[in-house]
């Protein structure tokens, strides 16, 4: 079974802190994604990556950056956390051009 692991289930950070959310997948998938989930808004794509060191902006990239130095790992970075970035963050991976996305358990981030 594909496993997508997010490093933290719950995080509490202060406004202005630099925050790293880590995601690792174990099935050699080319694609990796970061979504944020907010009530009533569903899942919105922040960034995705289709190969090592390759990334593309999603629908809401402002205030975020990403890093993919190895195929199995995709990191989301909040350069200076703000309270409006309090949300559930979901990482996913998939094969390059077919099939479903596999999701991690999510990280619930609270910025105070």
């Amino acid at each position, binding site marked *: 079974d594909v496993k997508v692991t997010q490093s933290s289930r719950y995080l509490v950070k202060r406004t202005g802190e630099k925050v790293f959310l880590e995601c690792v997948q174990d099935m050699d998938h080319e*694609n990796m*994604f970061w979504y944020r989930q907010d009530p*009533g808004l*569903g899942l919105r*794509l922040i960034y995705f990556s289709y190969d090592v060191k390759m990334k593309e902006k999603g629908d809401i990239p402002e205030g975020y950056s990403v890093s993919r130095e190895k195929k199995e790992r995709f990191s989301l970075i909040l350069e200076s956390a703000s309270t409006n970035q309090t949300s559930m963050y979901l990482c996913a991976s998939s094969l390059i*051009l077919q*099939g479903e*996305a596999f*999701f991690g358990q*999510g990280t619930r981030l609270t910025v105070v």
Partner: protein
Amino acid sequence: AQSVTQLDSQVPVFEEAPVELRCNYSSSVSVYLFWYVQYPNQGLQLLLKYLSGSTLVESINGFEAEFNKSQTSFHLRKPSVHISDTAEYFCAVRVSGTYKYIFGTGTRLKVLA
């Protein structure tokens, strides 16, 4: 731009009753379609998918969905729900040849005893 519409944000239904969760998408090209389920404070789990072939797809726990190309719909149905089906359900589409998955806003199914 591609979009997915789940018109019902909440659906209450009594146990053992049938349910239909609606999903429509906007695309005139070939697509892959998915339903995911999310239990509280967890990630999304794939419930079923349509990639090609038979337009009726089924899950192991009794859900089914039918791909209707002319109506650009992929509604999810179950003939008899259980309390344990209480969760949020997301419909998603991926346009053939692209990387991205586009999700609807979700439908919260609440099964009542």
